[in-house]
């Protein structure tokens, strides 16, 4: 059977079976009523023939479920358009060459975990000398000057440091998120930079496990990087975007 890209459904082992697994907790005590409640939730989610394969008592009146069902919904794959970074990923050497040959000056990058976030694992992976998964961090790039301001940096302080250091790009990491605090934090930085008249002078980039490029654009950033990002991905983007802006005369930060 040929796949109809206009109506794509979730897949278990047969095309269009709509198979899907979900797990969730209900704040009710374990028992037949809880099971029925879970089944009804599944039906309302559009999962037909829900089969509860696991029901576990979490104590204190909570019950956990693992459930399989057949999702009745489909999506039109042909109509999907996702904004993407068009930039080809360059390696360490290529990025440095590009900066040297096209910009002819060091690129300054300032990075921090902002707000209340104390988790530097993401920003460290991108910035610190050592890098991540065998890719050197931006500190190691001879054509870059990278500053890692660490954790719990207020947005205002990050901007002030960026101005002081003449940053070409600001990198913000948001790892721990609770009740969407990361979104508030990220939005605040954009607003502050606009209020200070800095927005056009610097590349604003965010990253973290819950960040996508699409989300970043929505929030007013120039780019966003999600899980699995390596330092050279970020470096490629920065170098190429600065080159592009230099050529078009737009927002030249030099």
């Amino acid at each position, binding site marked *: 059977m040929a796949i109809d890209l206009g109506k794509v459904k979730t897949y278990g082992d047969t095309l269009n079976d709509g198979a899907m697994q979900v797990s969730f907790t209900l704040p009710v005590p374990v028992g037949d009523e809880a099971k029925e409640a879970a089944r009804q939730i599944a039906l309302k989610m559009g999962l037909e023939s829900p089969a509860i394969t696991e029901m576990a008592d979490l104590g204190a009146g*909570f019950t956990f479920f693992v459930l399989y069902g057949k999702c009745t919904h489909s999506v039109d794959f042909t109509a999907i358009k996702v904004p993407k970074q068009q930039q080809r990923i360059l390696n360490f050497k290529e990025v440095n060459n590009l900066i040297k040959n096209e910009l002819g000056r060091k690129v300054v990058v300032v990075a921090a975990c902002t707000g209340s976030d*104390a988790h530097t694992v993401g920003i*460290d992976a991108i910035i610190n000398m050592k890098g991540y998964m065998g890719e050197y961090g931006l500190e190691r790039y001879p054509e870059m000057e990278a500053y890692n301001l660490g954790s719990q940096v207020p947005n205002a302080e990050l901007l002030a440091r960026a101005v002081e250091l003449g940053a070409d790009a600001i990198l913000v990491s948001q790892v721990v998120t609770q009740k969407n605090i990361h979104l508030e934090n990220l939005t605040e930085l954009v607003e502050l930079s606009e209020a200070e008249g800095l927005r056009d002078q610097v590349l604003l980039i965010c990253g973290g496990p819950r960040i996508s490029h699409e989300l970043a654009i929505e929030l007013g950033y120039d780019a966003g990087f999600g899980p699995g990002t390596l330092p050279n991905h970020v470096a490629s983007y920065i170098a190429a975007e600065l080159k592009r802006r230099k050529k078009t005369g737009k927002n030249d930060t030099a």
Partner: protein
Amino acid sequence: MANKLDLDLSKVDLSRKMAGKIADRLHAWIGDYTTTTTERAAARLLGIDGVDAAGVPLANVMVEKLQQAGLLDRGLVPWLAKAIVARGKTAQEIAQDLADGKLKVEDVPDGPEEKWRDTADGLAGKAAAQIGVVRAQRESRIAKAAPPSKPMLYVIVATGNVYEDAVQAKAAALQGADIVAVIRHTGQSLLDYVPYGPTSEGFGGTYATQENFRIVRSALDEAGEETGRYIRLVNYASGLCMPEISAMGAMERLDMMLNDAMYGILFRDINMRRTFIDQHFSRMINAYAGIIINTGEDNYLTTTDAFDKGYTVLASQFINEQLALHSGLKEEQMGLGHAFEINPAMEDGLLMEIAQAQLCRELFPKSPLKYMPPTKHVTGNIFKTYLINGMYNLVAVMTGQEIQLLGMLTEAIHTPFISDRYLSIDNANYIFNNARHLGDELIFAPGGKVQARATRLLDEACAMLQEIEQIGLETAMERGLFADIKRTREGGKGGSGVIRKGSSYYNPFLNIFVDHAISTEGRLS
């Protein structure tokens, strides 16, 4: 000591001796200073609680006023005792009057020394006795409860709202957790005061306040009574208020405290001297209160490579151990930390993890080792993370770890859901039971990969300790020897809270805690 790793025991002795000298070098000056939070901790131990009209804790009000009057180098207790003698009021009333402006620092006459000293010693003795009562309550509850099997299951709750925390903590206990930590609001470590009252607004965690301690304690006691167990409560005696949080924990029957000698310097950029002085009094309180400390060596492995820098964990454990001994902590109270953070893609990475965990076990045989789960290399693939956590649990049970912070399958996604915690407990219970005596049955191939790795780690740690012994711990931290983070001696937050003690400095708790440590055969500086 079991010596399954065929370690060179002279290297072990040398490492410990070097760490001892490193700690002695710090203690050559620590005793000459006090800090604002050390004095506030003394105020809290004497029963000063609550806040002024502007919400500033009364302990802070008193310390600030004494500092402005230039009297803090004598310590807070002498002035307070003099005020109590002169006014015939309680410590709390004096603090309240001071905050209300009804009493000024200079209104209090010096008075005869015997008199205020008697008052100070009497009040401190009573306060210490009360901590003794709390300690005895813990001991009696533990004696009545079913003993936890080892490794003990440690989970975190982090809702930001203490009432929600209490529900989740209780649920976790009912699911089988032995230990529950309430993660702190991420910004609290840099507050130079302890917030007051119950709180429902925190990010990444919940404020550590005395009332919050009480609320969660009571929820866990309920769960313990329902299940015939004793559920241990953990918080963080770290940041700018280390000793105050220890004092609060001592009064509210916290059982464990994250309480590292260097963590604040490295990871929160707190002033070095401030931290070394604070950790000392903080640990003295923990020692007296029977609280188990957890050290934070696992953090080194999240900023550096766990394989390349595994030895820094060992070196730090040796230093933490020697500093803890100076504060009167017994080895049984030292939950020295380490972690399962080697890149899972590494061939034989499991053997490397076994080597490190077994080495920690053999080097610190009495320590209730605190083992931390993989975080750095786990992603949003919850299925794989669940499997890696299983490997971590396997290494723990095979090497005799004691305090097992359970890995969450949703690590790197969000603070744990109630079901994440349940699944983590299920994972650990399965493996701990299924592989209960695996360690007893195992010996390592002589000269094989595990022994070779352990030998190399010990050699490297020993060399690092020898280097630090030469240059001093402060210089070592200036050079970035731990976690690749460099900190300057005079830099960091909270340095202005360090005060050189005057010749008439007095803090009765120091004597009480020292006497207690000596009488129970702890070592102490």
